[in-house]
Protein backbone atom coordinates (compact mmCIF):
# COMPACT_ATOMS: atom_id res chain seq x y z
CA UNK A 1 0.00 0.00 0.00
CA UNK A 2 1.15 3.53 -0.76
CA UNK A 3 2.41 5.73 2.03
CA UNK A 4 -0.38 8.26 1.81
CA UNK A 5 -3.11 5.76 1.08
CA UNK A 6 -6.08 5.91 3.45
CA UNK A 7 -6.33 3.14 6.01
CA UNK A 8 -8.48 0.13 5.10
CA UNK A 9 -10.91 0.99 7.88
CA UNK A 10 -11.43 4.46 6.46
CA UNK A 11 -12.06 2.97 3.02
CA UNK A 12 -14.58 0.51 4.45
CA UNK A 13 -16.37 3.35 6.26
CA UNK A 14 -16.46 5.44 3.07
CA UNK A 15 -17.87 2.65 0.88
CA UNK A 16 -20.36 1.62 3.55
CA UNK A 17 -21.45 5.25 3.98
CA UNK A 18 -21.92 5.53 0.23
CA UNK A 19 -24.01 2.35 0.09
CA UNK A 20 -26.21 3.35 3.01
CA UNK A 21 -26.73 6.82 1.55
CA UNK A 22 -27.72 5.29 -1.77
CA UNK A 23 -30.12 2.92 0.00
CA UNK A 24 -31.67 5.77 2.01
CA UNK A 25 -32.18 7.86 -1.12
CA UNK A 26 -33.41 5.16 -3.49
CA UNK A 27 -34.95 2.71 -0.97
CA UNK A 28 -34.45 -0.15 -3.37
CA UNK A 29 -33.46 -3.07 -1.10
CA UNK A 30 -34.87 -2.94 2.43
CA UNK A 31 -38.49 -1.97 1.67
CA UNK A 32 -38.63 -4.64 -1.01
CA UNK A 33 -37.27 -7.22 1.45
CA UNK A 34 -39.90 -6.26 4.08
CA UNK A 35 -42.72 -6.43 1.56
CA UNK A 36 -41.42 -9.73 0.22
CA UNK A 37 -41.20 -11.27 3.73
CA UNK A 38 -44.69 -10.17 4.70
CA UNK A 39 -46.11 -11.63 1.50
CA UNK A 40 -44.21 -14.89 2.05
CA UNK A 41 -45.73 -15.15 5.55
CA UNK A 42 -49.20 -14.78 4.04
CA UNK A 43 -48.36 -17.46 1.48
CA UNK A 44 -47.13 -19.79 4.23
CA UNK A 45 -50.34 -19.15 6.18
CA UNK A 46 -52.28 -20.65 3.28
CA UNK A 47 -49.63 -23.05 2.02
CA UNK A 48 -49.39 -24.69 5.43
CA UNK A 49 -53.01 -23.89 6.31
CA UNK A 50 -51.98 -22.78 9.77
CA UNK A 51 -52.75 -19.59 11.68
CA UNK A 52 -50.45 -20.36 14.60
CA UNK A 53 -46.94 -21.75 14.31
CA UNK A 54 -44.57 -23.20 16.86
CA UNK A 55 -41.45 -25.33 17.06
CA UNK A 56 -39.80 -26.48 13.87
CA UNK A 57 -42.55 -25.11 11.64
CA UNK A 58 -42.17 -21.62 13.10
CA UNK A 59 -38.39 -21.84 12.79
CA UNK A 60 -38.62 -22.95 9.18
CA UNK A 61 -41.07 -20.25 8.10
CA UNK A 62 -39.11 -17.49 9.85
CA UNK A 63 -35.64 -18.50 8.70
CA UNK A 64 -36.43 -19.57 5.15
CA UNK A 65 -38.20 -16.26 4.63
CA UNK A 66 -35.16 -14.34 5.90
CA UNK A 67 -32.91 -16.44 3.66
CA UNK A 68 -34.97 -15.68 0.54
CA UNK A 69 -35.28 -12.01 1.42
CA UNK A 70 -31.50 -11.89 1.84
CA UNK A 71 -31.09 -13.36 -1.67
CA UNK A 72 -33.04 -10.39 -3.03
CA UNK A 73 -30.56 -7.95 -1.52
CA UNK A 74 -27.56 -10.11 -2.46
CA UNK A 75 -28.62 -10.11 -6.12
CA UNK A 76 -28.60 -6.34 -6.12
CA UNK A 77 -25.54 -5.84 -3.92
CA UNK A 78 -22.93 -5.29 -6.64
CA UNK A 79 -25.12 -4.30 -9.57
CA UNK A 80 -24.34 -0.60 -9.17
CA UNK A 81 -20.59 -1.34 -8.95
CA UNK A 82 -20.75 -3.16 -12.24
CA UNK A 83 -23.00 -0.73 -14.07
CA UNK A 84 -21.46 2.47 -12.77
CA UNK A 85 -17.83 1.45 -12.72
CA UNK A 86 -17.36 0.83 -9.01
CA UNK A 87 -15.22 -2.25 -9.72
CA UNK A 88 -12.87 -0.27 -11.94
CA UNK A 89 -12.76 2.57 -9.43
CA UNK A 90 -11.68 0.33 -6.57
CA UNK A 91 -9.04 -1.30 -8.78
CA UNK A 92 -7.62 2.07 -9.77
CA UNK A 93 -7.70 3.56 -6.29
CA UNK A 94 -4.58 3.04 -4.16
CA UNK A 95 -6.55 1.09 -1.56
CA UNK A 96 -6.94 -2.48 -0.41
CA UNK A 97 -9.64 -4.09 -2.58
CA UNK A 98 -10.72 -6.29 0.33
CA UNK A 99 -12.25 -3.14 1.85
CA UNK A 100 -15.03 -3.53 -0.72
CA UNK A 101 -15.79 -7.00 0.65
CA UNK A 102 -16.03 -5.85 4.26
CA UNK A 103 -18.04 -2.76 3.35
CA UNK A 104 -20.53 -4.76 1.28
CA UNK A 105 -20.85 -7.41 4.00
CA UNK A 106 -21.49 -4.66 6.55
CA UNK A 107 -24.07 -3.03 4.30
CA UNK A 108 -25.85 -6.35 3.81
CA UNK A 109 -25.77 -7.01 7.56
CA UNK A 110 -27.40 -3.62 8.19
CA UNK A 111 -30.07 -4.32 5.55
CA UNK A 112 -30.84 -7.65 7.18
CA UNK A 113 -31.05 -6.12 10.65
CA UNK A 114 -33.41 -3.45 9.28
CA UNK A 115 -35.49 -6.18 7.63
CA UNK A 116 -35.76 -8.12 10.86
CA UNK A 117 -36.71 -5.00 12.79
CA UNK A 118 -39.88 -5.03 10.71
CA UNK A 119 -40.29 -8.72 9.85
CA UNK A 120 -39.93 -10.15 13.37
CA UNK A 121 -42.83 -8.14 14.86
CA UNK A 122 -44.94 -9.06 11.84
CA UNK A 123 -44.07 -12.73 12.29
CA UNK A 124 -44.92 -12.49 15.99
CA UNK A 125 -48.24 -10.79 15.23
CA UNK A 126 -49.19 -13.25 12.51
CA UNK A 127 -48.15 -16.58 13.95
CA UNK A 128 -46.85 -16.69 17.50
CA UNK A 129 -49.00 -17.28 20.55
CA UNK A 130 -46.18 -16.19 22.81
CA UNK A 131 -43.11 -14.15 21.88
CA UNK A 132 -41.01 -15.34 24.82
CA UNK A 133 -38.62 -17.24 22.54
CA UNK A 134 -37.84 -14.26 20.33
CA UNK A 135 -35.45 -12.49 22.69
CA UNK A 136 -32.99 -15.40 23.07
CA UNK A 137 -33.38 -15.91 19.32
CA UNK A 138 -31.84 -12.52 18.58
CA UNK A 139 -28.17 -13.62 18.97
CA UNK A 140 -28.91 -16.62 16.73
CA UNK A 141 -30.45 -14.36 14.10
CA UNK A 142 -27.56 -11.95 14.35
CA UNK A 143 -25.00 -14.69 13.70
CA UNK A 144 -27.13 -16.05 10.86
CA UNK A 145 -27.23 -12.53 9.41
CA UNK A 146 -23.45 -12.37 9.55
CA UNK A 147 -23.28 -15.70 7.70
CA UNK A 148 -25.67 -14.42 5.02
CA UNK A 149 -23.79 -11.12 4.75
CA UNK A 150 -20.32 -12.64 4.49
CA UNK A 151 -21.14 -15.39 1.99
CA UNK A 152 -23.38 -12.98 0.07
CA UNK A 153 -20.63 -10.38 -0.25
CA UNK A 154 -18.23 -13.09 -1.43
CA UNK A 155 -20.46 -14.82 -4.01
CA UNK A 156 -22.40 -11.80 -5.27
CA UNK A 157 -19.56 -10.20 -7.28
CA UNK A 158 -18.98 -13.54 -9.08
CA UNK A 159 -22.66 -13.69 -9.99
CA UNK A 160 -22.81 -10.03 -10.93
CA UNK A 161 -19.88 -10.36 -13.32
CA UNK A 162 -21.30 -13.48 -14.99
CA UNK A 163 -23.84 -13.78 -17.78
CA UNK A 164 -26.45 -15.33 -15.55
CA UNK A 165 -26.48 -12.94 -12.62
CA UNK A 166 -29.81 -13.82 -11.03
CA UNK A 167 -29.21 -17.52 -11.43
CA UNK A 168 -25.62 -18.02 -10.28
CA UNK A 169 -25.94 -16.16 -6.96
CA UNK A 170 -28.80 -18.16 -5.42
CA UNK A 171 -27.56 -21.39 -7.04
CA UNK A 172 -24.21 -21.23 -5.24
CA UNK A 173 -25.46 -19.55 -2.07
CA UNK A 174 -28.27 -21.93 -1.20
CA UNK A 175 -26.11 -25.05 -0.69
CA UNK A 176 -23.38 -22.90 0.84
CA UNK A 177 -25.83 -21.61 3.44
CA UNK A 178 -27.19 -24.99 4.52
CA UNK A 179 -24.86 -25.36 7.56
CA UNK A 180 -25.82 -22.01 9.16
CA UNK A 181 -29.45 -22.73 8.34
CA UNK A 182 -29.14 -26.10 10.10
CA UNK A 183 -27.70 -24.48 13.22
CA UNK A 184 -30.13 -21.54 13.27
CA UNK A 185 -33.17 -23.75 12.67
CA UNK A 186 -32.13 -26.17 15.37
CA UNK A 187 -31.82 -23.30 17.85
CA UNK A 188 -35.02 -21.58 16.72
CA UNK A 189 -36.96 -24.86 16.76
CA UNK A 190 -36.26 -25.25 20.48
CA UNK A 191 -36.68 -21.57 21.35
CA UNK A 192 -40.07 -21.32 19.66
CA UNK A 193 -41.32 -24.66 21.05
CA UNK A 194 -44.96 -24.82 22.05
CA UNK A 195 -44.06 -25.62 25.65
CA UNK A 196 -41.97 -22.46 25.97
CA UNK A 197 -38.37 -21.76 25.01
CA UNK A 198 -35.86 -24.53 25.64
CA UNK A 199 -32.15 -23.78 25.74
CA UNK A 200 -31.14 -27.30 24.84
CA UNK A 201 -27.70 -27.09 23.16
CA UNK A 202 -28.24 -23.36 22.62
CA UNK A 203 -24.50 -22.67 22.90
CA UNK A 204 -23.61 -25.45 20.46
CA UNK A 205 -25.68 -23.75 17.78
CA UNK A 206 -24.28 -20.33 18.56
CA UNK A 207 -20.75 -21.76 18.41
CA UNK A 208 -21.47 -23.50 15.09
CA UNK A 209 -22.77 -20.23 13.62
CA UNK A 210 -19.82 -18.31 15.03
CA UNK A 211 -17.37 -20.80 13.56
CA UNK A 212 -19.03 -20.62 10.17
CA UNK A 213 -19.03 -16.82 10.26
CA UNK A 214 -15.36 -16.55 11.17
CA UNK A 215 -14.33 -19.16 8.58
CA UNK A 216 -16.08 -17.34 5.78
CA UNK A 217 -14.83 -13.94 6.96
CA UNK A 218 -11.31 -15.34 6.70
CA UNK A 219 -11.94 -16.93 3.30
CA UNK A 220 -13.46 -13.72 1.99
CA UNK A 221 -10.53 -11.75 3.26
CA UNK A 222 -8.11 -14.17 1.61
CA UNK A 223 -9.70 -14.53 -1.82
CA UNK A 224 -11.79 -11.43 -2.47
CA UNK A 225 -8.94 -9.58 -4.16
CA UNK A 226 -8.89 -12.19 -6.93
CA UNK A 227 -12.44 -11.26 -7.85
CA UNK A 228 -11.37 -7.70 -8.56
CA UNK A 229 -8.25 -7.95 -10.67
CA UNK A 230 -8.68 -8.08 -14.40
Amino acid sequence: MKRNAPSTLAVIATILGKDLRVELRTLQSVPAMVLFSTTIYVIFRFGLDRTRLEGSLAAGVLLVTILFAALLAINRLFVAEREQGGFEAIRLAPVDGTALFFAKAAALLIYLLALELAALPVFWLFFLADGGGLLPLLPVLFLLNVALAVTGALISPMATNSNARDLIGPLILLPLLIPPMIAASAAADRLLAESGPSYDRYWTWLATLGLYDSMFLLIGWAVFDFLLED
Partner: protein
Amino acid sequence: MKTPSLRTLAIATAVLIGAGFALVFFYAPNETDQGFIQKIFYLHVPLAIVALIGFVIGGIHAVRHLRSGDPVHDARSYVSIHTSVIFGVAVLITGAIWAKASWGRWWVWDEPTLVSFLIVFLLYSTYYPLRYAIPDRERQARYASVFAVTAGAFVPLNFMAVRAAESLVHPRTFATAEGGLPPKMWLTFLVCLAGIASLWYILVRFELTAKRTSAQLSRLRRALDGSPPPAAAGVGSRIAPGATTTG
Protein backbone atom coordinates in the same frame (compact mmCIF):
# COMPACT_ATOMS: atom_id res chain seq x y z
CA MET B 1 7.56 -36.89 -17.26
CA LYS B 2 8.83 -38.65 -14.17
CA THR B 3 5.41 -39.98 -13.15
CA PRO B 4 4.44 -43.46 -14.44
CA SER B 5 2.96 -43.65 -17.91
CA LEU B 6 -0.78 -43.84 -18.47
CA ARG B 7 -0.47 -47.44 -19.68
CA THR B 8 1.29 -48.60 -16.52
CA LEU B 9 -1.26 -46.75 -14.42
CA ALA B 10 -4.18 -48.23 -16.34
CA ILE B 11 -2.86 -51.77 -15.83
CA ALA B 12 -2.21 -51.13 -12.14
CA THR B 13 -5.73 -49.73 -11.71
CA ALA B 14 -7.33 -52.68 -13.49
CA VAL B 15 -5.34 -55.12 -11.36
CA LEU B 16 -6.18 -53.31 -8.12
CA ILE B 17 -9.89 -53.06 -8.86
CA GLY B 18 -10.01 -56.66 -10.10
CA ALA B 19 -8.22 -57.84 -6.97
CA GLY B 20 -10.47 -55.69 -4.81
CA PHE B 21 -13.65 -57.16 -6.28
CA ALA B 22 -12.25 -60.67 -6.07
CA LEU B 23 -11.59 -60.07 -2.39
CA VAL B 24 -15.06 -58.59 -1.91
CA PHE B 25 -16.80 -61.65 -3.35
CA PHE B 26 -14.54 -64.54 -2.36
CA TYR B 27 -12.55 -63.45 0.69
CA ALA B 28 -14.40 -60.91 2.83
CA PRO B 29 -16.92 -62.58 5.16
CA ASN B 30 -20.62 -61.76 4.92
CA GLU B 31 -21.64 -59.22 7.52
CA THR B 32 -23.85 -60.88 10.15
CA ASP B 33 -26.63 -58.25 10.28
CA GLN B 34 -26.92 -57.08 6.71
CA GLY B 35 -25.65 -60.12 4.85
CA PHE B 36 -24.59 -59.91 1.25
CA ILE B 37 -25.82 -56.36 0.57
CA GLN B 38 -23.25 -54.98 2.99
CA LYS B 39 -20.65 -55.69 0.31
CA ILE B 40 -21.70 -52.52 -1.50
CA PHE B 41 -19.80 -50.86 1.34
CA TYR B 42 -16.56 -51.74 -0.47
CA LEU B 43 -17.66 -49.65 -3.43
CA HIS B 44 -19.71 -46.91 -1.80
CA VAL B 45 -17.35 -45.83 0.97
CA PRO B 46 -14.12 -45.75 -1.12
CA LEU B 47 -15.95 -43.76 -3.81
CA ALA B 48 -17.13 -41.26 -1.21
CA ILE B 49 -13.69 -40.93 0.41
CA VAL B 50 -11.97 -40.51 -2.94
CA ALA B 51 -14.55 -37.98 -4.17
CA LEU B 52 -14.16 -35.86 -1.03
CA ILE B 53 -10.37 -35.99 -1.18
CA GLY B 54 -10.67 -35.08 -4.87
CA PHE B 55 -12.65 -31.97 -3.95
CA VAL B 56 -9.94 -31.00 -1.49
CA ILE B 57 -7.25 -31.62 -4.13
CA GLY B 58 -9.24 -29.40 -6.48
CA GLY B 59 -9.14 -26.71 -3.78
CA ILE B 60 -5.37 -27.08 -3.36
CA HIS B 61 -4.81 -26.71 -7.10
CA ALA B 62 -7.10 -23.68 -7.00
CA VAL B 63 -4.93 -22.07 -4.32
CA ARG B 64 -1.88 -22.72 -6.45
CA HIS B 65 -3.65 -21.26 -9.46
CA LEU B 66 -4.57 -18.09 -7.57
CA ARG B 67 -1.02 -17.75 -6.30
CA SER B 68 0.78 -18.38 -9.59
CA GLY B 69 -1.83 -17.43 -12.19
CA ASP B 70 -0.68 -20.49 -14.16
CA PRO B 71 -3.64 -21.94 -16.14
CA VAL B 72 -2.20 -25.46 -15.71
CA HIS B 73 -3.30 -25.41 -12.06
CA ASP B 74 -6.75 -24.24 -13.07
CA ALA B 75 -7.04 -27.15 -15.49
CA ARG B 76 -5.96 -29.55 -12.73
CA SER B 77 -8.44 -28.03 -10.30
CA TYR B 78 -11.23 -28.27 -12.87
CA VAL B 79 -10.50 -31.88 -13.80
CA SER B 80 -10.17 -32.91 -10.13
CA ILE B 81 -13.54 -31.42 -9.27
CA HIS B 82 -15.12 -32.74 -12.45
CA THR B 83 -13.97 -36.31 -11.77
CA SER B 84 -15.08 -36.04 -8.15
CA VAL B 85 -18.55 -34.87 -9.17
CA ILE B 86 -18.85 -37.93 -11.41
CA PHE B 87 -17.72 -40.12 -8.52
CA GLY B 88 -20.26 -38.24 -6.41
CA VAL B 89 -23.09 -39.41 -8.66
CA ALA B 90 -21.88 -42.98 -8.13
CA VAL B 91 -21.74 -42.40 -4.36
CA LEU B 92 -25.34 -41.20 -4.26
CA ILE B 93 -26.53 -44.08 -6.43
CA THR B 94 -24.71 -46.77 -4.43
CA GLY B 95 -25.89 -45.04 -1.24
CA ALA B 96 -29.49 -45.17 -2.43
CA ILE B 97 -29.17 -48.86 -3.31
CA TRP B 98 -27.72 -49.61 0.10
CA ALA B 99 -30.46 -47.60 1.82
CA LYS B 100 -33.15 -49.43 -0.15
CA ALA B 101 -31.66 -52.80 0.74
CA SER B 102 -31.13 -52.19 4.44
CA TRP B 103 -33.91 -49.74 5.35
CA GLY B 104 -36.40 -50.40 2.57
CA ARG B 105 -36.31 -46.84 1.23
CA TRP B 106 -34.24 -45.24 -1.50
CA TRP B 107 -33.40 -42.23 0.61
CA VAL B 108 -33.11 -41.77 4.36
CA TRP B 109 -32.45 -38.51 6.15
CA ASP B 110 -31.02 -39.99 9.32
CA GLU B 111 -27.66 -40.96 7.87
CA PRO B 112 -25.69 -37.73 8.41
CA THR B 113 -22.72 -38.72 6.25
CA LEU B 114 -24.92 -39.35 3.23
CA VAL B 115 -26.90 -36.13 3.79
CA SER B 116 -23.67 -34.13 4.14
CA PHE B 117 -22.40 -35.72 0.97
CA LEU B 118 -25.57 -34.71 -0.87
CA ILE B 119 -25.11 -31.08 0.23
CA VAL B 120 -21.47 -31.07 -0.84
CA PHE B 121 -22.48 -32.63 -4.15
CA LEU B 122 -25.17 -29.97 -4.70
CA LEU B 123 -22.67 -27.22 -4.00
CA TYR B 124 -20.05 -28.62 -6.40
CA SER B 125 -22.69 -29.13 -9.07
CA THR B 126 -22.97 -25.33 -9.25
CA TYR B 127 -19.33 -25.21 -10.33
CA TYR B 128 -20.36 -25.88 -13.95
CA PRO B 129 -23.02 -23.18 -14.35
CA LEU B 130 -20.60 -20.73 -12.72
CA ARG B 131 -17.84 -21.55 -15.20
CA TYR B 132 -20.10 -21.54 -18.23
CA ALA B 133 -21.63 -18.19 -17.29
CA ILE B 134 -18.28 -16.38 -17.54
CA PRO B 135 -17.07 -16.01 -21.13
CA ASP B 136 -13.70 -14.43 -20.37
CA ARG B 137 -11.24 -17.34 -20.03
CA GLU B 138 -8.95 -15.75 -17.51
CA ARG B 139 -11.69 -14.42 -15.28
CA GLN B 140 -13.53 -17.74 -15.52
CA ALA B 141 -10.44 -19.52 -14.23
CA ARG B 142 -9.99 -17.05 -11.38
CA TYR B 143 -13.63 -17.18 -10.26
CA ALA B 144 -13.65 -20.95 -10.52
CA SER B 145 -10.59 -21.07 -8.27
CA VAL B 146 -12.20 -18.75 -5.72
CA PHE B 147 -15.20 -21.06 -5.78
CA ALA B 148 -13.03 -24.16 -5.35
CA VAL B 149 -11.22 -22.66 -2.36
CA THR B 150 -14.48 -21.57 -0.72
CA ALA B 151 -16.17 -24.90 -1.35
CA GLY B 152 -13.11 -26.80 -0.12
CA ALA B 153 -13.31 -25.00 3.21
CA PHE B 154 -17.05 -25.57 3.29
CA VAL B 155 -16.77 -29.38 3.17
CA PRO B 156 -15.58 -30.00 6.77
CA LEU B 157 -17.88 -27.30 8.20
CA ASN B 158 -20.83 -28.89 6.48
CA PHE B 159 -20.03 -32.35 7.81
CA MET B 160 -19.76 -30.89 11.30
CA ALA B 161 -23.08 -29.04 11.14
CA VAL B 162 -25.04 -31.98 9.73
CA ARG B 163 -23.54 -34.32 12.31
CA ALA B 164 -24.39 -31.88 15.12
CA ALA B 165 -28.00 -31.67 13.97
CA GLU B 166 -28.41 -35.44 13.92
CA SER B 167 -26.49 -36.75 16.88
CA LEU B 168 -29.12 -35.88 19.47
CA VAL B 169 -32.12 -37.32 17.66
CA HIS B 170 -30.38 -40.33 16.25
CA PRO B 171 -27.48 -42.08 17.90
CA ARG B 172 -25.23 -43.52 15.24
CA THR B 173 -26.28 -47.10 14.82
CA PHE B 174 -24.74 -47.56 11.46
CA ALA B 175 -21.16 -48.17 12.48
CA THR B 176 -19.89 -50.36 9.68
CA ALA B 177 -17.03 -48.04 8.86
CA GLU B 178 -16.08 -47.51 12.47
CA GLY B 179 -13.85 -49.67 14.65
CA GLY B 180 -14.60 -53.34 15.08
CA LEU B 181 -14.17 -54.11 11.42
CA PRO B 182 -12.65 -57.60 11.19
CA PRO B 183 -9.14 -57.73 9.64
CA LYS B 184 -10.41 -59.56 6.53
CA MET B 185 -12.86 -56.77 5.87
CA TRP B 186 -10.20 -54.16 6.52
CA LEU B 187 -7.85 -55.69 3.99
CA THR B 188 -10.59 -55.91 1.36
CA PHE B 189 -11.64 -52.34 2.09
CA LEU B 190 -8.10 -51.01 1.77
CA VAL B 191 -7.52 -52.78 -1.55
CA CYS B 192 -10.80 -51.39 -2.88
CA LEU B 193 -9.90 -47.93 -1.62
CA ALA B 194 -6.53 -48.11 -3.38
CA GLY B 195 -8.24 -49.32 -6.58
CA ILE B 196 -10.82 -46.52 -6.57
CA ALA B 197 -8.18 -43.93 -5.71
CA SER B 198 -5.99 -44.99 -8.60
CA LEU B 199 -9.06 -45.03 -10.85
CA TRP B 200 -9.70 -41.40 -9.87
CA TYR B 201 -6.09 -40.51 -10.45
CA ILE B 202 -5.87 -42.13 -13.85
CA LEU B 203 -9.14 -40.54 -14.99
CA VAL B 204 -7.77 -37.15 -14.00
CA ARG B 205 -4.52 -37.86 -15.83
CA PHE B 206 -6.38 -39.07 -18.93
CA GLU B 207 -8.61 -36.02 -18.98
CA LEU B 208 -5.66 -33.66 -18.57
CA THR B 209 -3.72 -35.42 -21.32
CA ALA B 210 -6.74 -35.29 -23.59
CA LYS B 211 -7.17 -31.58 -22.90
CA ARG B 212 -3.50 -30.90 -23.55
CA THR B 213 -3.54 -32.92 -26.74
CA SER B 214 -6.64 -31.29 -28.14
CA ALA B 215 -5.24 -27.85 -27.33
CA GLN B 216 -2.05 -28.81 -29.15
CA LEU B 217 -4.05 -30.14 -32.06
CA SER B 218 -6.09 -26.99 -32.49
CA ARG B 219 -2.91 -24.93 -32.24
CA LEU B 220 -1.37 -26.99 -35.02
CA ARG B 221 -4.52 -26.79 -37.09
CA ARG B 222 -4.56 -23.02 -36.73
CA ALA B 223 -0.94 -22.92 -37.76
CA LEU B 224 -1.64 -25.06 -40.83
CA ASP B 225 -4.80 -23.22 -41.89
CA GLY B 226 -3.57 -19.75 -41.36
CA SER B 227 -0.01 -20.54 -42.37
CA PRO B 228 1.22 -17.29 -43.78
CA PRO B 229 2.85 -17.13 -47.23
CA PRO B 230 6.47 -18.41 -47.28
CA ALA B 231 7.88 -14.91 -46.93
CA ALA B 232 6.48 -14.52 -43.41
CA ALA B 233 6.91 -18.16 -42.35
CA GLY B 234 9.26 -17.22 -39.53
CA VAL B 235 6.36 -15.76 -37.53
CA GLY B 236 4.97 -19.18 -36.70
CA SER B 237 8.33 -20.56 -35.59
CA ARG B 238 7.08 -21.32 -32.05
CA ILE B 239 4.79 -24.05 -33.34
CA ALA B 240 6.93 -25.03 -36.34
CA PRO B 241 8.75 -28.04 -34.77
CA GLY B 242 5.42 -29.74 -33.92
CA ALA B 243 4.12 -29.04 -37.43
CA THR B 244 7.12 -30.68 -39.07
CA THR B 245 6.85 -33.86 -37.01
CA THR B 246 3.19 -34.35 -37.95
CA GLY B 247 3.83 -33.44 -41.57
